[in-house]
């Protein structure tokens, strides 16, 4: 066990956990932040995507000891009142079906748009390729990313 001070969504949280614990389980089990989802545990589905500083990362394979003082942003902290342009675009296009993958999709899309304000179709596809949606909302996601890009 070791103590970690984490900068999450603009606040600092302290946890006492095994240093190998992936950030995903620290969020879900220790901090009661369940917006970040578990899908595979091996960085193959993107359901657990968060931002470390401004980069999209898979929280399921990120040991808590590797976080250091980098800023963590989760779906709960992407915007204060759920009105990030990506979230708004997701609602406008009524993207979710079951909804389980969507937090991860939104986090990946938000990181993409931060880095590339006007991505091409190919750039959207390759940035989003690591995020699985078993319900098949891919075409809608692409349209929503384009709408969000316009409104950023």
């Amino acid at each position, binding site marked *: 066990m070791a103590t970690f001070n984490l900068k999450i969504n603009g606040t600092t949280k302290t946890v006492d956990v095994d240093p190998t614990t992936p950030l995903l389980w620290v969020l879900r089990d220790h901090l009661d932040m369940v917006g970040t989802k578990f*899908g595979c545990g091996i960085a193959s589905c993107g359901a657990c995507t968060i931002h470390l500083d401004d980069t999209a990362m898979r929280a399921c394979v990120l040991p808590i000891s590797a976080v250091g003082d980098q800023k963590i942003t989760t779906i709960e902290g992407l915007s204060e009142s759920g009105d990030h342009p990506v979230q708004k675009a997701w609602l406008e296009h009524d993207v979710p*079906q079951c909804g389980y993958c969507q937090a991860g999709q939104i986090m990946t899309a938000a990181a993409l748009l931060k880095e590339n304000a006007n991505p091409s179709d190919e750039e959207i596809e390759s940035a989003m390729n690591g995020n*699985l949606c078993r319900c098949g909302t*891919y075409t809608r996601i692409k349209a929503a990313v384009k709408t969000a890009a316009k409104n950023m």
Partner: protein
Amino acid sequence: MTLVKISHGRRTFIKSSALAGGGMMIGFSWLASCKPTPEQLLTMPKEWFKINGFLKIGENGVVTIMSPNPEIGQNVKTSMPMIVAEELDVDWKYVIVEQAPLDTSIFNRQLAGGSQSIRHGWEGLRMAGATARQMLKEAAAKAWGVPVSEITTEASMIHHKNSGKSAGYGEMASAAANIEVPKEVKLKEISEYKIIGTSRNNVDGQKIVTGKPLFGLDYKKEGMLVAMIVHPPAFGLKLKSFDDATAKAMPGIKDVFKIDVYKEGDETQWCDTISFNELVVVVGSTTWEVMNAKKAITCEWEQIKSKEIEVPFFGKTKKISTPSGLENTDDHLAQMIAASKSSATVVRKDGDPEAAFKKATTILERSYTAPFLAHSTLEPMNFFAHVTAEKAELVGPIQTPEFMEKSASTRLGLPLDKIDIQMTRMGGGFGRRLYGHFLIEAAVISQKMNAPVKLIYTREDDMTTGIYRPAYHATYRAALDENKNLIAFHVKTGGVPESSLSANRFPAGAVDNYLAEEWTVVSNVSVGAFRAPGSNFIAGAEQSFLDELAETMGKDPIDLRLELLEKAKTSPVGKDNDYEAERYAGVLQLIKEKSGWGKDLAGLHRGVAAYFCHNTYVAQIVEIEMKDNAPIIKKVTAAVDCGLVINPVAATNLAEGGIIDGIGHGSYSAITLKDGVPQQNNFNTYRLIRHREAPKEIEVHFVDNKKDPTGLGEPLNPPVIGALANALYKATGKRYYDQPFLVDPKLMG
């Protein structure tokens, strides 16, 4: 006029204390703006008046509508309340939707399966809304001393034109709750609909995009422990012994023990399918600790003995044979090919197919295969249970709460009314969550621990515990005379361990000499319903064959189907043909028109398919472009006849999902076995379709025929596999017979 079921009549007066905190609550219909205006901030009522099991109305006019069926992403939680709201004539702005508890005294068929929620709920939902509206009208008539026939309603308001009196629903709610439930109510005409047929966004949308706890895996309770299972690595093995010394000493671990999920001799049901009944269970404080301890357990396994059981299956019994041995995909294929060449069970025979095949000048014969598939819901199997000596509280994602309540009661030795199942939103179902062994596992673990427990499957557990889509094989034969007329049609199909035949579907009824046969190969690999069971294979096979048949006959593939359907309509062969030829032809005509079929599109290759299942007719065209020798799916166009469309935006989304699902599984996914061991156990080895491979564009057209609504969760994915195979043929000159089409079989272990 339709009679109202008495079971809707229970009325109770309830205080708003049932709702967290009262006070202000944000409605969901402000989605477009995201920042609610003051008007959109709904004030929670001080009192609720329960009009019937489906709805309650607050004194301020806010209405809560219960959504009776499990939500697996098929949008019932929005669409079903829309139907109630329509007949209630309420303003959708003032509607709150809640997931109803499992209560069979109020709700019928609380099940998600077979794309039937809307179809079966249609009458009951409308009546629930209409009776409530009638009671509000009667309450107003009484209060104003005017005849009820002169009362009208509109968007949550009650009016009496002659006296100029008006009242909101909230003002009459308390009086309405005391009105006798009407024996009969008049339902609206389709032309009067204001909510049905208009697009309404997902009622949980805001919660989903902000990461609120909605799913089973998100559920938490004070003092809750986490449990995981260790199961045999191969089908055909069972637990012999285990060593838990290391695991038990690991941090956070509370206990390690063995459970029998179902008890020998207990009566089970169809949804109690299970692959491994004896499991080692690890229980601890947190997921990561339990995951680590799980890896530290060593087990010895032994081979199972063969057995046969009979389970009740919708009024009949179903025999399930489990042979011993460690099975291989190669052997399954060889067994299926052998079975396809041996005698089989004749399910339907019209005319004299043997004689017709004998005198044929041309016989076209082709075989098709498809592998086992894992459902791979993105949320792995999980369930929460808190079982005490008095009662069981079970919370989680389950498609069959009504059935599993009985199984839990039997297994736990508690009366039915002490089993409380609450449904959470599901991170996908696709049939996997019809089989609730994980609910029983959680309950048994909680009972043993005497504590609240959440059972979590890792992805590897989820993918290697079976309940797969069966592996399938089909051989089609067609006989042509010297003028290339179709004189006989033969389908012979089966699978491991089930066949996918629906003998009375098209082209049955359209060919004078028709033969449909089936066979099965027994296996110890467990299988279950998978989005559009059976159809998810046979539609693609049949539609590919029809394409090749049209080519052999020198006909356009749409024209051939339309000719056959014309015959099925004007002089049908045999009886029990289970489709309406006219509606079937309707979707083909619509797709022909919308896609400009027949036009030469430079560089684009098109394939067509059409199918009828789950009461819905679908025709699809897949358009492919070749780039660096690889197919790119540019566009999929679909024509759908599912009767009245309740919520167009959700219906289109669901249709798109079905199309992507079909293309994905037909192209990339497979579970293969070596000595009983699944060779794929996570998304790095089991391929699901990804963003880059999805169609670049999808266009969905609905037939506007105002017929009663039918299913939409399943019918879109079966035919698209055929349309894809046919387009791939146009693009590559090669016919695709074996799924997954776009993965090199040598790469699949």
